[in-house]
């Protein structure tokens, strides 16, 4: 042993402060976490929106498309028709305006079509699934089941696939070449779609086709109708049939003075279609006040821009000849105590019309299930359990036919969920949804760091040019704007490697592991001050108590 010569009165060796493990001071420990961004949580299709926006920020569009289509096979379609509840939940909305997620989704969808990116089917499992209905729920389920490796046949009663995407959403919102291209891509995975093939007997078809499981995605196609008092001298049409006839380019009687009854998106679609077909005077009659109509605000606004009149707080009392009598309604002052929100005033007015279209909701057609007594209905929809299984073993239901929000996006989400449930069921298991992370709420973030960046607005076709054709109303973002919009994402709850924690640690107690690998804490030296947590822009650090 060598004798150390130490300075006078010093018992320690001269050395670096590294010997002094200041981590022992700590009572709280920082940890890196992934929190669930509110957009992802709100998306009915369960997309990893923050994830694919992050890839789009880096201009890695194919990776973004692959991640997006992991959950939703229709980015070019949904980039147009989704009502984007994600944007309503977006934390950036509390800073300036929400990220234009839907417009970036559309851009990525377009990239997929331009570059002809394709899906791959999973390894063959030998199992066969029959799906009834080639609407959004059925096609989504077919896609996910095919990715699991099951053989899928979709039976569709109509002459073309797409369901409500084709027969309920007008061309000016969804050009048919986009719709067709994204449906073909699913067929190209080996999904068989049998058109003009109405299923009369589910059990018999299942047996004769050798199917292991059945998924019912027949939608809600029966329009609600009302019998009015009086002697109507004008046609009273159903909104779904009008939209369907328009799609098939068949005469649909939308001429002269058109009155649409209803306050939802279908009512707006019919009114806007009537304007495009040359109707002279289009009125939408809504029972509700403008703030409580079920149609989305931008749909109502675009409808008015195109020249339709929206008449609020009216119900139709009677139809006599060309004369429609409306009752003037009012919002009840007692509606908070359980009374009806909107009540009649007993005052009436009349308008003239040449055609009346009812757009007051749809339901599942119960006649479809007359031969399957084991499949029970409840409140006009198919009864399903937590894993989307009907009251008959091995038969599942999804989309508008099952209890749902009745939007295209929720239908896609239903299709995915049903596919996962069927996949588990075919394997003799019960589907368990993955547990969700804690929500990345705005209060966990430090918004000061985000640059000021106003939202990009998608180009819109002039109202005058919209009135005389079915050209698409809303345009694409160009590549620069799509990149900019993606880079407005605040990456809530998920580290985007801004180096803030690494830079601001007064104790140099964070190690940077290199691009894409993130960081790690050096707990030997971390004093637990919490600055990294306080200054993490996106809230991807949490402070937890130490065991002392």
């Amino acid at each position, binding site marked *: 042993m060598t004798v150390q010569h130490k300075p006078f009165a010093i018992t320690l060796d001269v050395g670096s402060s*590294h010997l*002094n493990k200041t981590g022992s001071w700590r009572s709280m420990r920082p940890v890196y976490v992934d929190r669930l961004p509110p957009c992802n949580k709100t998306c009915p299709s369960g997309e990893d929106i923050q994830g694919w926006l992050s890839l789009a920020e880096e201009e890695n569009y194919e990776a973004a498309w692959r991640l997006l289509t992991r959950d939703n096979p229709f980015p070019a379609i949904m980039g147009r028709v989704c009502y984007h509840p994600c944007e309503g939940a977006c934390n950036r909305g509390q800073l300036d305006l929400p990220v234009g997620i839907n417009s970036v989704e559309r851009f990525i969808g377009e990239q997929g079509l331009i570059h002809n990116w394709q899906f791959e089917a999973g390894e063959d499992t030998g199992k066969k699934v029959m799906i009834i209905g080639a609407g959004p729920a059925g096609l989504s389920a077919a896609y996910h089941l095919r990715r699991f490796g099951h053989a899928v046949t979709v039976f569709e009663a109509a002459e073309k696939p797409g369901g409500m995407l084709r027969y309920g959403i007008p061309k000016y919102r969804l050009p048919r070449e986009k719709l067709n291209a994204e449906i073909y891509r699913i067929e190209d995975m080996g999904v068989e779609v049998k058109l003009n093939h109405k299923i009369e007997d589910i059990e018999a078809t299942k047996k004769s086709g050798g199917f292991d499981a059945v998924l019912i995605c027949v939608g809600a196609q029966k329009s609600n109708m009302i019998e009015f008092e009086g002697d109507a001298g004008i046609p009273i049409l159903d909104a779904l049939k009008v939209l369907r006839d328009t799609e098939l380019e068949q005469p649909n009687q939308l001429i002269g003075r058109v009155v649409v009854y209803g306050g939802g998106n279908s009512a707006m679609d019919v009114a806007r279609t009537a304007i495009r077909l040359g109707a002279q005077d289009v009125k939408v009659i809504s029972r509700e006040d403008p703030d409580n109509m079920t149609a989305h605000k931008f749909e109502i606004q675009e409808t008015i821009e195109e020249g339709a009149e929206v008449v609020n707080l009216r119900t139709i009392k009677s139809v006599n000849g060309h004369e429609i009598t409306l009752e003037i309604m009012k919002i009840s002052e007692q509606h908070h105590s359980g009374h009806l929100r909107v009540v009649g005033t007993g005052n009436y007015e009349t308008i003239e019309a040449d055609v009346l279209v009812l757009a007051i909701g749809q339901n599942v057609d119960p006649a479809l299930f007359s031969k399957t007594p084991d499949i029970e209905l409840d409140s006009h929809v198919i009864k399903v359990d937590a894993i989307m299984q009907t009251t008959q073993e091995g038969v599942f239901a999804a989309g508008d036919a099952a209890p749902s929000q009745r939007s295209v996006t929720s239908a896609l989400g239903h299709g995915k969920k049903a596919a996962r449930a069927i996949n588990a069921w075919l394997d003799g298991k019960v589907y368990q949804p993955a547990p969700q992370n804690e929500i990345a709420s705005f209060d966990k973030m430090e918004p000061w760091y985000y640059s000021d960046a106003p939202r990009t607005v998608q180009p819109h076709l002039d109202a005058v040019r919209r009135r005389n054709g079915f050209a698409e109303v809303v345009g694409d973002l160009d590549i620069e704007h799509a990149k900019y919009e993606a880079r407005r994402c605040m990456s809530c709850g998920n580290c985007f490697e*801004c*180096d803030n924690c*690494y830079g601001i640690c*007064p*104790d140099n107690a964070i190690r940077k592991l290199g691009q894409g690998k993130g960081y790690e804490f050096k707990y030997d030296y971390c004093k637990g001050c919490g600055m990294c947590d306080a200054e993490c822009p996106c809230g991807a650090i949490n402070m937890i108590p130490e065991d002392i």
Partner: protein
Amino acid sequence: MSNQDSNTDIPCEQQTVKFYQTGTFTVGNRLLDEGCRTVQATAERANSLDSGHRACQGCGQALGARYALDAAMRATDNKIIAANATGCLEVFTTPYPETAWSIPWVHSLFGNVAAVASGIAASLKAKGDTTTRVIAQGGDGGTTDIGFGCLSGMFDRNDDVLYICYDNGGYMNTGVQRSSATPPAARTATTMPVGDNPGSSFTTGKFLPAIAMAHEIPYVATASVHDLHDLERKVEKAMTFRGARYIQINVPCPLGWGSQPALTIKLSRMGVECGLVPLFEAENGKLTDSTKIRYRIPVEDYLKLQRRFAHVLKPQNTHQLDAIRQIAEDNIKRYNLV
């Protein structure tokens, strides 16, 4: 500008940074060109002040010192000698026989760091070494009170030293006594919140950046630990000059300010955003640039997070709050902050 080296380029100053999520507000940014990121964002930073030092949790000075020295190290290709006045920074980094410094570093007395640094610069000149640069550093006490004579002399002789003052507004490691840089109304151990004008006096105090400007030295700047890009740019710019330079960095002190350690960066940001901590640059005695306030906030938002100002927010002391508001207003006008 004869006394400025012409061959040192300052990254990113002229480059327009397009919108990259957080732009240049965060330490790094994966979408930014490497050259536009801060020194602190790199895995290769010098870590001039390294782990194991004994500063309190959330120490702003420990952070400011690493920021400034690492930037100076990059600007000079790691050729830095630092002289350090007595004070927190010396005490918590160098309890014999340990040191947290990974650069050539010497401890002077409390009051003579500017003279020691001048001597080092003179010896380098005598040796013909033109590449090694000298930094003197200390807290506000060692700078504005105890070391002021030596510092003024260093300015007067225009010695080739960058003097960095880490201003936390008091003598913190000896128990939070008032310095001549303690802000008006702040409670310290020697300015207790009693009487009609509780806390530190409104009438005295020294704002050393203005005094340095009065010496008409080549470069004077103020910086804050919350704006790293700004801070690093100023240090790197200072290294392009020869002669006496002065940078004062606002560093929150959780112990002396009575603030949460986690809020150190937030407080330094709020101090700037409310107008009480003006960020500016001056060359040869003339104001040349100022960092604009991004989102102006009321001074009380800044004060209420600090226990040392608790009495200012009481109803009987609104005259103090009004006076502090006026200081912020005056700063904004004088230094063109909006």
